[in-house]
């Protein structure tokens, strides 16, 4: 994505030296050199493949109940054993991952979208809309996260939402709680970008507001939003699992990593059948740590302010 409005340089670059690498290609090259970040990316890709492609290879995707196979420990047929209804735990972890990752990612994208939009508006136009948005954000941030989610969860079960739609409502709930923090961060960035000297230069050149916003402010804001998003994906996945753990998120029989761990609440499963709740827990940990490490590498490359 080379910068918007580069019609001038694109118009006739044939005769000149090869098009100089844009900021994005240079950032990508520096990222590739960061071994730790690449390891993180590899694990993330593996987890996505594991959850989305894995089930295709598993013979047990029918989720049928095999009472004969109840609560079997890990064995050659069932690498991670079976659960109380005789279903293959490995397949369920894959399917659960699909839901958890989708909900985590989707709620992050939603809250970053809402947060950035409102934050940018508040930061760029300031005045009343800044006050309204920020006061609303303050209000939401005053109410403790978990109790708020509890109330929303309860409302959810009351409206008798069919299970398959429940996932999308959970996404909405998570982004409702997350967007104020993001809005505040983006607003701060926009306020500082607005005062930068190259924005004053744009005013001196007499550029229209539209061009100042899209050609000058946005190209500098987009990398920061990507960094904020990558650092929040992990958090979103964690909060989804917390919700499911409290039985508020996606309800069984649809599996999520969170509600699979919830099974550990009954004493026997917890003590005798760790293969039921440890694999989903470990999957969350592996995915989130990989995303955080990759996100950190991304931030070093995209965020001009040197961190390390």
């Amino acid at each position: 994505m080379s910068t918007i409005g580069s019609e001038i340089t694109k118009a006739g670059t044939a005769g000149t030296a090869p098009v100089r690498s844009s900021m994005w290609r240079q950032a990508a090259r520096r990222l590739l050199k960061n071994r730790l970040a690449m390891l993180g990316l590899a694990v993330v890709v593996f987890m996505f493949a594991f959850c989305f492609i894995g089930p295709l290879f598993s013979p047990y995707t029918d989720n049928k109940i095999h009472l004969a196979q109840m609560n079997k420990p890990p064995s050659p047929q069932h690498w991670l054993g079976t659960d109380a209804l005789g279903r293959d735990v490995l397949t369920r972890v894959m399917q659960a991952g699909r839901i958890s990752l989708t909900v985590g990612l989707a709620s992050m994208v939603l809250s970053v979208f809402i947060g950035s939009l409102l934050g940018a508006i508040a930061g760029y136009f300031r005045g009343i809309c800044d006050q309204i948005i920020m006061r609303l954000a303050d209000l939401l941030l005053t109410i403790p996260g978990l109790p708020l989610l509890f109330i929303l969860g309860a409302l959810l079960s009351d409206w008798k939402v069919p299970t398959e739609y429940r996932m999308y409502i959970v996404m909405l709930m998570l982004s409702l709680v997350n967007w104020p923090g993001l809005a505040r961060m983006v607003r701060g960035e926009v306020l500082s970008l607005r005062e930068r000297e190259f924005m004053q230069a744009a005013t001196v050149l007499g550029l229209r507001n539209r061009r100042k916003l899209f050609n000058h402010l946005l190209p500098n804001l987009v990398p920061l939003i990507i960094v904020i998003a990558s650092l929040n994906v992990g958090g979103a996945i964690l909060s989804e699992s917390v919700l499911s753990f409290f039985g508020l998120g996606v309800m069984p029989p649809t599996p999520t990593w969170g509600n699979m761990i919830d099974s550990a609440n009954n004493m026997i499963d917890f003590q005798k059948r760790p293969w039921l709740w440890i694999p989903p827990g470990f999957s969350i940990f592996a995915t989130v740590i990989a995303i955080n490490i990759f996100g950190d590498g991304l931030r070093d490359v995209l965020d001009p302010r040197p961190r390390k």
Partner: protein
Amino acid sequence: MSAFITKRLLYTVVILFAASLLIFSLYALTPGDFITGNIKLTPERKAELREIYGLNKPVLERYAIWLKNALHGDLGYSMAQQKPVLTLFNQYIWNSFLLAAVSTFLTWVTAVIIGCVAAYKQYSWFDTLVMVAIFAAMSLPSFFIGLFLIKILAVDWKLLPPGGMIATGSQATGLAYVKEVIHHMTLPVIVMTIMGVGSLARYIRGSMIDVIKQDYIRTARAKGLKERKVLFTHALRNAMLPAITLVGFELPALFGGSLIIEKIFNWPGIGQLYLTSFGLRDYPLLMGFTVLIAILTVIGTLLSDILYRVADPRVRLQ
């Protein structure tokens, strides 16, 4: 300075009103209530009770009543426990506070040490190790690590009790009681510390790295001061400035208790109280708890602003 405080206090009161109104209406929206949910009561009895507790009145009116009482220090009557909400809070909140205070202290001490050493030895193997450990701590789902440690330390190796504040049915008092509580407290504190130390250590490390690059650190070294003095009198004091604002944000967690930890470790704190009463739809208690946390959050924010103004001479004088 005082003008700043009065303006902020006014703003705090406004926010609290808005928050309590929002919370109250949200709770009013949640389906069912203690009475209808209670199967033991006959329908007439239920109607009668609803009348007494004024549940039939419109939401705004109920809020007004609640608010009037709350301003007089009466947070209403817990239907499930048949006790005033405040006395209930008083009973359980200190258990949560004990857990949170110890773990917050440990979190801050560990984070400052790890953060500073990692920043000072930047690019060293220790720094990379610390960074990976920080990422791990930030990526662990708290309930999972709790269960995991209980499984290994309590169930398999029987080193620590799996939960509760005292051994079931023990009548220990005095020193024995204290020793027993500490024994039970160890595991939850470990988990809470792991949860907190990740992001804090990373924050302090980042702040320390920025400060070490500053000109006045170079001046301190040019003065021939011992490296220890350069680090503690000059670097740490400046690095901790931004961290001070985080102290205020710990306030809600100190008293609010952690719902997750108290559920897994069966710890008789205010968080567990909230969980059980949520199931029973015991509104007065739920409302009291949520508003209490909201108050603590807002006071926490105010506290960090004031702390920052006091700590940083550049801001203090404005």
